[in-house]
């Protein structure tokens, strides 16, 4: 047994060496929560069934990375923020940085045991996930200046995938035997709004001798929403945005961005005290069609500042100096520079965008009745990067009605994620709340992550099995 635990711990530790981003919800470690299947459809529940109203589960998880208060502001003796510490913030940035938001609200759902081997759930959730990656130089260049980049280019990158959608899922859990069980949840997805920045990329080179600037630049952004909108851009009139807030039009688009998703899970219980599980969640995509719009911008050969795909500025030329000397407006010169950076905005036929998938390995060990420790390693696949995380948790049930969970999550450059979850089972009613980062509630200044989960769910046939009995005990 110790060997299993040691190996699992080592694996999880190694996987967490470069952790960042969202982690499993704390409810997945809480034994009396009926919603463990949201993180793994093969997980068993202790109830015979449940149903929930819009209060079933409300979950919010935001990861700020280095974009934390202490990095951004300096306070005076009274605690008031008085200074924006831009240099400090930039120094705290990694080469690539992440900003993520995950929110889900259970609109309605129910689950029930079907025979001895199956458990079926139906749920309808509203979900929002935003994954934004930005390079250090996005802020480093405007704060530190281009002379900080004379020996290497300032590499500005920004990518984002923001999805708002609702999903209707039906899950089936099958307990093959006392050791193995598996689960699957196919899901219909309906997109509400999406912004997908595949690339907003610029590289700026500065010549250390004469300060000549060379820039490569490329941008592509796609957007769609059930709110009918149109965007246009032309040089004379600028950017214009019109949205039709007519309710009927919005409702008419409610199902016009279809998608499909799938959750898979597999559990193995080698001994009654230990459960090992694997899950692959949110494997899917949405085809965004309503008001789909594409914005792109690439360097354009608008004159002598363009050279082999790059914008090169080595200073004003003789003719430009002469024009300025003749009283021509500087603004006119700057306006001509805008031609090198055209923005093309046009409606598109639609596009596919994946939802961020995740895979996880989890181990739960019940060391005493109602007392359990867990470890979970997760990889979350955002649109342009992978977010690993490692969580260890303790969960204890007290008086057969109180469930307390303490969790600790390791992420790269974020080691203060101490979580706390509390649940109360009042017979037919289960109330619970929790966070993955309790420190954020009392020390927001140094908080890199803000999470909260709460819910109220009705259930029946609860507390049937807090621990699988050993075969010999059954006898």
């Amino acid at each position, binding site marked *: 047994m110790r060997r299993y635990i040691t190996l699992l711990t080592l694996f999880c530790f190694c996987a967490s060496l470069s952790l960042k981003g969202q982690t499993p919800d704390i409810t997945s470690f809480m034994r009396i929560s009926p919603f463990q299947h949201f993180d793994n459809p093969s997980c068993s529940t202790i109830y015979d069934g449940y149903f929930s109203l819009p209060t079933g589960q409300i979950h919010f998880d935001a990861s700020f990375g280095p974009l934390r208060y202490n990095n951004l502001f300096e306070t005076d003796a009274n605690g008031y923020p008085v*200074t924006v510490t831009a240099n400090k913030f930039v120094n705290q940035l990694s080469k690539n940085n992440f900003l993520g938001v995950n929110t889900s609200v259970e609109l309605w759902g129910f689950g029930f045991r079907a025979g001895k081997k199956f458990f079926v759930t139906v749920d309808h959730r509203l979900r929002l996930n935003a994954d934004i990656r930005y390079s250090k130089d996005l802020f480093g260049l405007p*704060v530190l200046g281009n002379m900080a980049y004379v020996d290497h280019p300032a590499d500005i990158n920004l990518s984002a995938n923001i999805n708002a959608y609702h999903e209707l899922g039906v899950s089936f859990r099958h307990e093959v035997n006392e050791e193995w069980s598996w689960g699957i949840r196919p899901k219909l997805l309906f997109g509400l709004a999406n912004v997908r920045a595949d690339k907003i990329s610029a590289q700026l080179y500065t010549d250390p001798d004469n300060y000549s600037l060379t820039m490569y630049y490329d941008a592509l952004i796609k957007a769609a929403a059930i709110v009918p909108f149109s965007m246009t851009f032309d040089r004379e009139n600028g950017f214009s945005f019109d949205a039709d807030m007519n309710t009927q039009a919005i409702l008419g688009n409610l199902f016009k961005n279809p998608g499909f998703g799938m959750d898979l899970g597999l559990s193995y219980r080698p001994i009654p005290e230990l459960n090992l599980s694997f899950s692959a969640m949110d494997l899917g995509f949405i085809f965004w069609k309503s008001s789909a719009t594409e914005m792109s911008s690439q360097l354009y050969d608008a004159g002598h500042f363009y050279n082999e795909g790059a914008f090169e500025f080595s*200073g004003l030329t003789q003719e430009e100096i002469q024009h300025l000397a003749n009283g021509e407006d500087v603004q006119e010169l700057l306006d001509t520079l805008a031609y090198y950076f055209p923005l093309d905005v046009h409606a598109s036929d639609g596009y596919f965008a994946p939802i961020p998938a995740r895979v996880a390995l989890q181990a739960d060990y019940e060391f005493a009745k109602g007392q359990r420790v867990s470890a979970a390693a997760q990889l979350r696949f955002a649109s342009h990067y992978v977010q690993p995380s490692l969580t260890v948790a303790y969960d204890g049930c007290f008086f057969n009605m109180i469930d*307390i969970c303490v969790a600790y999550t390791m992420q790269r450059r974020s080691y203060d994620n101490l979580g706390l979850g509390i649940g109360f089972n009042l017979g037919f009613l289960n109330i619970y709340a929790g966070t993955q980062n309790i420190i954020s509630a009392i020390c927001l200044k140094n908080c890199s992550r803000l999470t909260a989960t709460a819910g109220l769910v009705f259930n029946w046939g609860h507390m049937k099995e807090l621990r699988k009995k050993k075969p010999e005990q059954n006898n």
Partner: protein
Amino acid sequence: MMKNNKILIALLLSATLLTACFDKNNFDFSHLNNVDAEGSWGIPLINASYSIGDILSMADAPEHLTTGEDGVLQIEYEFSKDSLLSASQFMNGLLDEVHFSGGLSFPTYEIPIDEGTHLTLYKDTIEVSFPSDQVSVSSASLKSGMLTLSIQYNLSHQVSVSVTCPQLQNAGGQPFHIEEVSTGGHFEMTLNLANYKIAPNNNSFSISFEVSYTADGTPLPSQLVFNYEANLLNINFSEIRGKFATINLPLDMSTDFNLDYLANHLTGTIEIMDPVIALEIMNTFPVDAKADLYEAYLSGPRITSSLLASNPTTIWLPANTSSFTDVPFPIASHITITPNIESFTLSGEAAVNTSGMSGPELVITEDQIIHLRFKVTLPIKMRVDQLTFCDTLDMGDIEIPDINGFSNILLRLGIHNGLPLTFAAQAYFYDSRTHTVKDSLFTAYQPVMCAINGVPRLTELFVSKDNLEEVQRMLNCDKIIIKAMLDTEGKPAAIMADQKLKVELGASFNMNVNSLVNN
């Protein structure tokens, strides 16, 4: 169970303690008033290549700047004497307006009055001569001319008047002769001589007139009185055949020749190698002409530089050239000037038909003419010895940028000098209100070395100002005095049109956003 309760109590207590640490002041952003952001920036300002021509053009120099066939830049001024000598001008002055007058009074007691008796009452001849010191005319065609004759007499009888000029022939070759009848005591005649031809005898021709009377028995007044007045007016020739004396004409020409493009010249001279005066002439006369030039010089305040190799310099203007033709104009191989040159002056004398009356007979027509066109070219092939300029820029109207928030300002000037000129410059920041020089751009004159064998040399100049007060003091000055010095290091240097001075100006500075925001 007891153990579980302890864990529960510990967890709840910890959560309570942690929650007590929250400070709501941390999220009151109304006191936020500083931005701690200091970056280092480098910006290229100028990347331009200038030839000497570009630099002179910026100083409003000119259309006078050209490129020679050998690629050498040159300053070129062109001017012309459209009509040194015009045949029509010459011919039309040969016969001035000619006026003649005369009269006669005599008693009539001896004049028979028997009816039918014919008597000549008055007769006279006018002699008109060409100036024999200028021309000996064989024949001359009149382009225009008027002959007027007015005779007054105190006779009421009818008289006959005849006018005769045998040397004056009409287009048909008929000699001029008319007879008119006059009554009332006066006779008036106006004759258009256009297209008549004069064939003078001994360079002159005569006009004779006669008044005659046929008696009818009526008594005459006791005293007869005759007065006449004859005029030759507006005599213009279209052609003269004959021999001509030499025509001497003064040749005085002057034109602006401005080299003072850049700035006030202080000291030093420019030795121009191989200056050129190109002369083009058009001489449609059938005889050669020549010009003796006594002076040809560039001049300005305190400088006069002659271009003539010898004095006088004689230039032959060949005959019968119907279009402009180059004529050799030997001048000095080099001249010394300063940029203060303001004008070019040329003086001398031209002579047409140098053989004079001893030469052959000529046919001169009214359209014959001599044109002169000069082009003075100074190739910028020169030897310059510490030629120093000075100019003052008025900063009074320039908006001074606010440099608060900037520090460690470094200007880097990279000059790739492809010119065969070494030069040096310095700028002084002058406050005219206190009459003091507050600062200079460089600590000393900064030489920019000339190209070697046409290969540009890079000179880097740096202006570093760590102290903001120092920069502010410079910017507060109202004038910038710029001094520049050129030198060819004792050797003649030709400035080619494709030789460039590449200037790269960049500025680096530290910028504190907080200072900028607060200002």
